[in-house]
């Protein structure tokens, strides 16, 4: 069997890579994808703990995280579409004025 630590280390690595992507990418959609990557890393940790403790609560919480990520992606991408159409660019460095 695979020890639980291996899953947790993988989750930490994916979370770290998500942070690097979040900080270093300029395209706003890529930044959003980095957020989804971080959420996935957390899901992996939840399921690993759920398997290790033998209870199912972790998996139930993963379902909730997935639902929340779906709702957040919907509204977030709607906002991104509007902002990108207004500023005609998907570069986050261009969104640096307080008024549109």
């Amino acid at each position: 069997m695979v020890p639980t630590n291996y899953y947790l280390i993988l989750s930490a690595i994916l979370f770290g890579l998500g942070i690097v992507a979040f900080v270093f990418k300029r395209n706003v959609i890529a930044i959003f994808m980095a957020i989804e990557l971080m959420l996935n890393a957390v899901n992996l940790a939840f399921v690993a703990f759920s398997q290790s403790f033998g209870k199912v609560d972790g998996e139930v919480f993963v379902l909730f995280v997935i639902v929340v990520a779906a709702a957040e992606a919907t509204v977030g991408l709607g906002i991104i579409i509007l902002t990108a159409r207004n500023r005609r660019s998907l570069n986050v460095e261009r969104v640096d004025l307080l008024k549109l």
Partner: protein
Amino acid sequence: MTGALVIFFALAALAVVGSVSLILQREPIHSALSLIVVMVALAGLYLLMGAEFVAAVQIIVYGGAIMVLFVFVIMLLNAGEEERTNFSKLATFAGIPLALAVTGFIAAAIAHSSASLPAPEPSGALTSTKTLSMLLFSDFVYPFELTSFLILVAILGAIVLAQREN
């Protein structure tokens, strides 16, 4: 090296390669494809841990709906290559090693804390959907109804955002 370890390392390597590819790709559509590979690799890992329903939901909802939404938005906005950055060199040369150091620190802390985890060994049993749903609809029924309300709010928000100004 048992079969489970081999599969774990293969899927873990796939997930890490996909995430690194997400960072390094210039076109956003290729980043989206890399993220889909990560999602599928994670679904494989959930299957390895016996969480069959969560693995299926991960592919159907995350890989088949949320990422399709991303791909649609990239196509609609015709997102092209990323522009050259004007980041300071300090940020690149100090930032990436620092991020790696933080990740390594967390990973080392986890690896050394194995004694403090309550150590029932992973049994390799499959979690049946029935067990999951019994818990979901008895102990967690209140968050469940709240998430349905959340989805309704998100749908309404998306419709309002998509309306044109009349």
